[in-house]
């Protein structure tokens, strides 16, 4: 082991790799960072994937929804009430309202249209929302405090780790299981799966499919809002944060397989691990990692890890 560390330090000239090998608690912190980042990204990506899975619309405005979630938490938690959880609830509620307006007012008209039309419309929404955000919140960078009950760190034996980030690691799987139970065990979930498979037949059975679409769009958007709200303490709300997150989310969703909850879950974990360990070992390549993951998966499984080949039947 010592010779390996020496090899990394002296022959490769890579202090990051040497630190990972020589310092177990440093390596462990990277692992935990990977998971907490992954779980936050998962919440947002799951919403994007859910919406695409049912509505077949790639919503580029999903990143803007995330940004609004973060801003709303800043206003409600930081400026008005001082209660972080109230802020997150307001972010979810605010996004639900935005989702209804945008889906009923705009998106419902483009489901049968070609992809280019959908792309243009959702991109137009991105531009409008980012300007609306600038009108409301300006161009400052805001800081949001960690919730009072989750300041400080927990002793994990190996090392101390921030309580709030631990909380994220727990909340991600909880949301994954909740979403899974929703789609598999509730009647609304069964209806959404049926709508994915044969929308026309479902309507001929007396189901008002547009209402299901609205419901799914609300759910997916609320996930973006809550994801943005939960990210606010470590990702300061600021203009442009929507563009960064949407790229990360696309990578995760495509790696995992469009429309698959567990695909997004695994995709997010892969993303977190590669990003965090990669940043330590080859810091200059940080921006390239998402695309390297994407490339690697697309070469082997173009339909993603948990997805199904296009046109293939179950």
């Amino acid at each position: 082991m010592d010779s390996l560390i020496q090899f990394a330090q002296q022959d490769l000239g890579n202090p990051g790799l040497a630190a990972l090998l020589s310092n177990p608690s440093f390596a462990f912190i990277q692992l935990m960072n990977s998971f907490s980042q992954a779980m936050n990204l998962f919440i947002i990506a799951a919403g994007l994937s859910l919406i695409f899975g049912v509505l077949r619309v790639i919503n580029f405005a999903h990143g803007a929804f995330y940004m609004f979630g973060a801003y709303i938490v800043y206003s409600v938690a930081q400026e008005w009430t001082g209660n972080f959880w109230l802020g997150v609830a307001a972010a979810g509620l605010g996004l639900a309202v935005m989702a209804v307006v945008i889906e009923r007012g705009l998106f419902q008209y483009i489901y049968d249209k070609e992809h280019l039309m959908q792309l243009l419309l959702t991109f137009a929404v991105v531009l409008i929302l980012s300007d609306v955000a600038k009108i409301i919140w300006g161009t400052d960078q805001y800081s949001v405090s960690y919730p009072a009950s989750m300041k400080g760190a927990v002793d994990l034996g190996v090392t101390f780790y921030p309580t709030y980030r631990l909380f994220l690691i727990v909340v991600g799987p909880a949301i994954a299981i909740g979403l899974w139970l929703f789609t598999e065990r509730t009647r609304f979930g069964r209806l959404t799966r049926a709508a994915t498979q044969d929308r026309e037949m479902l309507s001929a059975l007396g189901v008002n499919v547009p209402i299901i679409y609205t419901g799914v769009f609300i759910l997916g958007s609320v996930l973006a809002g809550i994801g943005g709200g939960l990210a606010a303490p470590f990702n300061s709300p600021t203009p442009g944060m929507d563009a960064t997150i949407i790229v990360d989310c696309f990578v995760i969703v495509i790696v995992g397989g469009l429309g698959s909850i567990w695909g997004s879950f695994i995709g997010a974990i892969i993303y977190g691990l590669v990003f965090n360990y990669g940043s330590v070992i080859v810091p200059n390549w940080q921006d390239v990692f998402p695309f390297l993951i994407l490339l690697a998966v697309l070469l082997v499984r173009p339909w993603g890890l948990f997805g199904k080949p296009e046109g293939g039947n179950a």
Partner: protein
Amino acid sequence: MAQLEARNLHTSYGLSRVLFGVSFEVEQGSCIALIGRNGVGKTTTMRSLIGLTPPSEGEVVWEGRQIAGLAPHTVAKLGIGFVPEDRRIFPELTVWENLDIARRPAEPGRQAWGEDEVFDLFPDLKDIQSRAGGVLSGGQQQMLTIARSLMGNPRLLLLDEPSEGLAPRVVETLRERVRTLKESGLSIVLAEQNLGFVLALSDTCHIMEKGEIVYSGTPDHLRENRDVLDRHLTL
């Protein structure tokens, strides 16, 4: 007054016109059959009635109300069940889930269909409740697609080519099940190419050709006039 009345239906898919003035009536509790070769407009007539391909001209009067142009889910809620030609089972949903999503309460005072009643009629489905719809045999899928529409408690069933692609023994079972449904008071519009099936179940037969009804008569009349059948149905 007839329960369902199609008046002068003209329907097209884009620029291609398929129906040229189709009219017929369905009395409450009766079974009318649309027969004819492939492509004469039987399926299009069904789709026009349920609202999936609304007619560009003509009226559909259901229990005294004009329903042409209404959304399919509204038509279905008014009491019309649709059993499509290609069955269209949700392949990734289980048999039970396929039934559950179509569930709708019956009108008060009428005998209601739920999974228990459906399994009484199609006992084979009961044992495969948790199997995915996509792996069922053709016969099982046909039973399921009828069972599924019954879950919505319709008063009229649009039954499109139920015997297509099924083994003769399965067709026979199916015919008896449909007869049971008819005897329970359910009205049926049946599109079929299997003449035995049609003659056994229908009260009135309409032969279609090139988007029009070219002959109407009772099954007995058809049996006595084989030349009509030969003229319109043989290739």
